[in-house]
């Protein structure tokens, strides 16, 4: 246990905080497992969840997903791609959109909110939720939504969201009131502080309010005789990063008077204060997945199309005149017995167009298109898969027929053991078990 304590100390900053807090024992276990590289227990547990998702036949399928997600968050404290968390959230959320009975389920709404927070534009998600009637009777939606507005500095909209919630009669009302009042208190405080700041504006910029604060993202002032100034080259930040920056901007604009951060939210001032809530037919695009590249045109430069041979990198480099040194103990690289004809080597062969990025928006749109097509005659051959697609794809990862069947077999065996069927022992070993 002591070593696991050390684990925690060593990687505190890598552990993403959870709103409801982390179970200490689970955290220790997760860290120890990762330290030892113990993947098998993890894999087995994951597989168990995946199987449960497919074999579940009760009334509350959401429960399995909720437990799976909870386990994933506890087991992968660092988050990241290994945990598959974003995929899981996305799948859960889109899976039950049509299911009315979950629209007021707190667990489902919380999953939606978590999903929204991971998206590039949570506002779209919240608006979609409202349009679909998901969580419109729950305070959690309005609280999260107004928080998002507050982050962007739009106190007025944040307030109106709360009004909406109260109008709809969202439950629990008390919670809504509490958060609303807190928002109003913060708004007042902000106005007060900005008023007092205006009076202090003439003061030296280095000393803003009472305590000296280093103005962030301003140029570093050189001390001493040398007047070298560090060039600050802020890379064009992604949306999330920029948003994080302007987080400071509205709350304390007077402290960094010189700095003008581009505020993309303020820019389109022509937007009406109450944006029309379009009826969203599909949930918006999921979070900006960083490592997934969109198919883009590489450059606009066109190469003049010479003869075929002109395009290919045909000539192999001339043999060096010296004998390259080969170490004694280096084995010659193992070569698969295939002849490569170096003269014919078209490097840039025609590549099939890659499938555009599948987003939940696109998936739902595609599904709708499919439904429309099936009612029309369009002359194209339509295809129909003759296998249990839903069963194979229900979880975060796919299953094969054999895995499905093996899972079923395993469960049956487990049940047999439980009921203690001792009769099978008496039979001769030659006879096979009929399933």
């Amino acid at each position, binding site marked *: 246990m002591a070593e696991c304590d050390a684990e925690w100390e060593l990687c505190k900053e890598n552990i993403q905080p959870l709103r409801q807090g982390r179970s200490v024992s689970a955290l220790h276990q997760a860290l120890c497992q990762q330290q030892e590289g113990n*993947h*098998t227990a993890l*894999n*087995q547990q994951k*597989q168990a969840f995946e199987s449960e998702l497919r074999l579940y036949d009760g009334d509350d399928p959401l429960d399995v997903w909720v437990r799976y997600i909870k386990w994933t968050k506890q087991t992968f404290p660092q988050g990241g791609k290994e945990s598959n968390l974003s995929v899981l959230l996305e799948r859960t959320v889109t899976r039950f959109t049509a299911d009315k009975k979950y629209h007021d389920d707190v667990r489902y709404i919380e999953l939606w909110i978590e999903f929204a927070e991971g998206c590039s534009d949570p506002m779209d998600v919240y608006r979609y939720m409202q349009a679909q009637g998901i969580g419109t009777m729950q305070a959690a939606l309005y609280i999260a939504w107004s928080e998002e507005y507050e982050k962007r500095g739009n106190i007025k909209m944040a307030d109106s969201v709360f009004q909406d919630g109260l109008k709809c009669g969202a439950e629990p009302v008390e919670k809504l009131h509490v958060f609303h009042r807190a928002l109003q208190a913060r708004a007042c405080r902000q106005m007060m502080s900005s008023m007092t700041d205006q009076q202090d504006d003439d003061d030296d910029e280095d000393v803003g309010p009472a305590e000296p604060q280093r103005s962030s993202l301003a140029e570093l002032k050189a001390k001493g005789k040398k007047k070298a100034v560090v060039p600050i080259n802020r890379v064009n930040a992604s949306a999330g990063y920029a948003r994080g920056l302007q987080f400071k901007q509205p709350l304390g604009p007077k402290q960094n008077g010189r700095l003008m951060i581009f505020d993309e939210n303020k820019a389109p001032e022509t937007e009406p204060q109450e944006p029309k809530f379009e009826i969203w037919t599909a949930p918006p695009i999921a979070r900006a997945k960083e490592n997934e590249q969109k198919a883009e045109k590489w450059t606009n430069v066109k190469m003049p199309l010479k003869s075929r041979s002109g395009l290919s990198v045909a000539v192999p480099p001339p043999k060096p005149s010296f004998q390259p040194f080969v170490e004694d103990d280096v*084995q010659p690289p*193992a070569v*698969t*017995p*295939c*002849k*490569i*004809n170096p003269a*014919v080597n*078209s490097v840039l*062969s*025609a590549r099939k167009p890659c*499938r555009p990025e599948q987003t939940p928006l696109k998936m739902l749109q595609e599904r709708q298109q499919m439904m429309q097509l099936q009612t029309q005659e369009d*002359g*194209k*051959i*339509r*295809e*129909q*898969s*003759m*296998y*249990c697609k839903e*069963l*194979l794809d229900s979880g975060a*990862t*796919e299953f*094969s*027929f*054999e*895995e*499905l*069947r*093996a899972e*079923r*077999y*395993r469960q049956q065996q487990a049940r047999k053991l439980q009921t203690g069927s001792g009769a099978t022992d008496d039979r001769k*070993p*030659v*006879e*096979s*078990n*009929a*399933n």
Partner: protein
Amino acid sequence: MSLFGTNTAFGSGGTGVFGSTTTDSHNPMKDVEVTSPPDDSISCLAFSPPTMPGNFLIGGSWANDVRCWEVQDNGQTVPKAQQMHTGPVLDVCWSDDGSKVFTASCDKTAKMWDLNSNQTIQIAQHEGPIRTIHWIKAPNYSCVMTGSWDKTLKFWDTRSPNPMMSLQMPERCYCADVVYPMAVVATAERGLIVYQLENQPSEFRRIESPLKHQHRCVAIFKDKQSKPTGFALGSIEGRVAIHYINPPNPAKDNFTFKCHRSNGTNTATPQDIYAVNAISFHPVHGTLATVGSDGRFSFWDKDARTKLKTSEQLDQPITACCFNSNGNIFAYASSYDWSKGHEYYNPQKKNYIFLRNAAEELKPRNKKW
């Protein structure tokens, strides 16, 4: 030598050519029915290697057993022996001298079956069900390669309880094939890895999948000099990809083709797409056979890029197939592959293994270049 379980009757095919008076669709091709087939779905079939005289067929099934039949020249099949695992058997293979059979099972173990003594011993252990098993005979080593759903590929020398080598894979192993010195493994999430086996197994290349759907089966093919040069990969949605490892012109040489689909020309109804359950290459002609969930088998010539033959439809999916060592016999198994989940599973339905004369039908077409 033990007879098979008493609940299967010998009555059906003792004399070879099986002719039934009723036109039931369980054997529309009127092929030879193997006697005493397993009681549950057949997952794998393997014929004995050419080093052994005669033809012996091994079949593993979901009834946890592995059975061995002798296939005589007159077409008669004689059950010879049977062994059990404690879980469904997923794959079988022969050693190169034909004296041993290796079996892989859902019970996470692999066993070596000595046919002469009819004894089995466990030779491998994984953390999850073992999906594939292959014998590797290299000039300087011999071993058994097992691919498992625990995402590892392990190599065993059958005498030690610990693997000689263990390679980590990105995902669960779904199918594999070995033709020395090349091995191909297709994994979940459309992963595809080629290994080279000279000196010791190592990863050679990870290939981006030529198919858009789940990988189901893979088989290596050889060039005119009998060297492995590429593989055929089958997916869960009626498509097979032919992929060469180092082709002169990848865009032209590699291709995919649709198979195991229905309603080919009829555009009014949607086309039904079935999974490709297994692929086998003819050892002499280099043509290939595919079997699918639709209950049909097809023969193809990959060089001429044509279909040679498609069978009639059986009333059950075809789950496994293989050729014997000289290519005269094509064996295929008719049983439920679980493609529609457990609701469509009928434990009472009989499972069959059929044998067909493959000498003529798999001759390649004349190439058109």
